[in-house]
């Protein structure tokens, strides 16, 4: 796996200066973009295509705070067990169950008044989940801070607490998004699961 942080010349941090990242992206694009290598031979053009593609992906990943955190986690914890990645965060268990019940109820409700009532309840849950989702950002910032406070050369054990919390946060966010998409599908006929 290529290291996007290294490729773009940034330290491996959860938080980074997005304006600086964009400037760097434009600078590197001027070096790598195929537009500036049209006069080169086939090999040079191929190299430019590969570098430019890599740069575009690196920027896309690092420019989004959650994508960046997920990517950092994959770099730092490559052997993270598959099960750990998909574990339902305990704090969300109640919500998941309540919501699933309501969605099923909504599906089988024949009475329009009853259906509307369930929809209203789902919208309430949706509002709560949205607040939770928004709250994740503060938690991410907190983790970014403790991550950057780790001294140079900290071993795996020393990083474990932060990485574990990061994994839980990312899982929570994935679940919240899935829940919100399910509600959207049930209430508004949206597309369902989204990534």
């Amino acid at each position, binding site marked *: 796996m290529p290291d996007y942080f290294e490729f773009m010349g940034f330290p491996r941090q959860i938080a980074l200066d997005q304006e600086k990242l964009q400037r760097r992206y*434009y600078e590197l*694009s*001027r070096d790598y*973009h*195929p*537009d*500036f290598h*049209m*006069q080169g031979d086939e090999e040079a053009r191929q190299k430019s*295509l*590969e570098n*430019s*593609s*890599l740069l*575009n*992906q690196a*920027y*896309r990943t690092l420019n989004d705070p959650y994508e960046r955190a997920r990517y950092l986690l994959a770099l730092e914890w*490559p052997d993270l067990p*598959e099960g750990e990645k998909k574990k339902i965060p305990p704090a969300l268990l109640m919500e998941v169950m309540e919501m699933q019940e309501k969605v099923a109820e909504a599906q089988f409700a024949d009475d329009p008044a009853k259906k509307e009532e369930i929809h209203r309840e789902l919208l309430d849950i949706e509002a709560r989940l949205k607040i939770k989702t928004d709250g994740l950002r503060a938690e991410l910032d907190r983790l970014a801070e403790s991550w950057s406070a780790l001294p140079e050369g900290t071993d795996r054990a020393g990083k474990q607490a932060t990485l574990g919390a990061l994994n839980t946060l990312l899982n929570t966010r994935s679940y919240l998004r899935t829940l919100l998409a399910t509600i959207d599908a049930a209430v508004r006929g949206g*597309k369902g699961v989204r990534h």
Partner: protein
Amino acid sequence: MASLLQIDLGPDRKRRVVGIDLGTTNSLVAYVGEDEQPAVIDVAGDGIVPSVVAVLGAGEVVVGRKAKEHLFTDTDKTVYSVKRLMGKSYGDIERDSHLLSYRLAPRREGLVRVEIGGTEYTPIELSAMILRDLKARAEEHFGQTVTAAVITVPAYFNDAQRQATKDAGKLAGLDVLRILNEPTAAALAYGLDQQRKGIVAVYDLGGGTFDISILKLELGVYQVLSTGGDTYLGGDDIDQAIMGRLRAELAERHGLSEVTLTELQQLRDAAERAKQELSSAEQSTIAIEFATSGISFRRTMSRQELEEIARPIIGRTIEPCRSALRDAGLTQADIDAVVLVGGSTRMPLVRQTVEEVFGRTPFDSLNPDEVVALGAAIQADVLSGNRRDTLLLDVVPLSLGIETVGGMMSVLIPRNTTIPTQVRENYTTFVDNQTGININVYQGEREFVRDNRQLASFTLGPLPPLPAGMPKIEVAFTIDADGILRVKARDMRTGAEQEVDVRPSYGLTDEEVERMLRESIERAQEDITERMLVESRTEAETLLQATRKTLEKHPELIAPEEREAIEEILGRLAESMAGSDHREIRSITDELDHATEPIAQRVLNSSVQQSLEQRKIEEV
């Protein structure tokens, strides 16, 4: 791939690279001169070349204003709006093919063709005729050969349409350095002119296509954030709606329900004129004299009536604008400027719609007809290595994905991803000794592949016989800076490059383009019919033999009624081969090819005993 027409200019002569706006209604060619400013190349003050081609027989091709004159005298030999047909199948354009005043070749699988004087032409060949004319214009202007160009396309053009445009350029003897998105080109010209920073929306409503692109402009950087559109929506649709109304009245008032191609063309011309006049006038008079029936048709049209007709059509541009905003993660308030491009944006109703959607008065001091060509010229200058102050970061307009279990679309590259971009996927076999892995590539936003456009289909292999799951093939899907897909595969066990034969589902293979190129050069000297006959017979013979062999070898895979149907086609094919109609041979060959497709699939499947469904190696 080098074009045969490419001429080596030698090292001391600067290569001229031009920018071409190949439009539905009009085309232009522009360049950047010594003063570093882009300019449209004109002949006697006229830089606009109507995208009209008249093929008058004996290889006499007329393009532009002169061709427009033939619209009424040689209606069935004069083609307009060919861009609407680029990369399209018959199914795509079914609903208004009856409104065309030229003829399409008989319906078949694959791409639409136009029939002129008994000869079939692909939209690519017809577009190449326009490009050749623009090339000649530029050569006359410079007094030297022009061999390279940047050609613009609607941002929402799919892979097949882009490839078709590139092929047309090749056919016209041009090395197409870049396929550039029209709204992006417009933004380049706007940015150079205005020297502004901020978020810009480009609303481009032309004769045949609609694009909306949202860009971030910053110190010479043009970063496209999102794009959307409809490649079958434009001024032509408004003309056709007016024509529909006029035709109904003709039938009602004069009992004229069947019209000739020339009369259809007269109606189209009258509709277009009225529409254009009503951009500045409140009232327009439509007057048509039909020579054959002696009918004299007159009526007035108010702007209000036009707007009534046009509103549903223009309304279709609103949703793409909203979703482009959503995709960019922006709201109306974030937009700093709206730039109008395309002749149809002269309509007051269009301006009003744009104002409503974006909440601001659009910027319109650039000439909407020229701005795309000027932007293409700037990009041509960049690609020539003359200019490093401009950086263009464009996106792919449609998601790219592959077919997975149950006909679902699995997206590999989401829409609005900055290009070039590359995704690597790992594939392995599902059963022991499997010799190939089938991959079908699609473009579009729908959940099931059947609702999206198939781009290509290819088989990885032949693979050496190994236990299931052992082979590891890495496939790299790359979308290059032209927005065109390239596929490369590597055998991860041996490191060897794996041959991938990507067969475009809608479009021409490199061989076909080469062939067309050769033909266009040789047409004058050689008896083309004779050669086509030989070629079609050879092709028919090959397929005929292969089919017979399969019928013999795999009787268990073929249902009795299927066998009967194939035998019947085989009989007809053999009969046609004895004759001398190459078109008949070709069309029966195509029919046979189509009919035997499912069998070929079954044979392939049976040879590995089970389905060929590949299993992706989970990436960890």
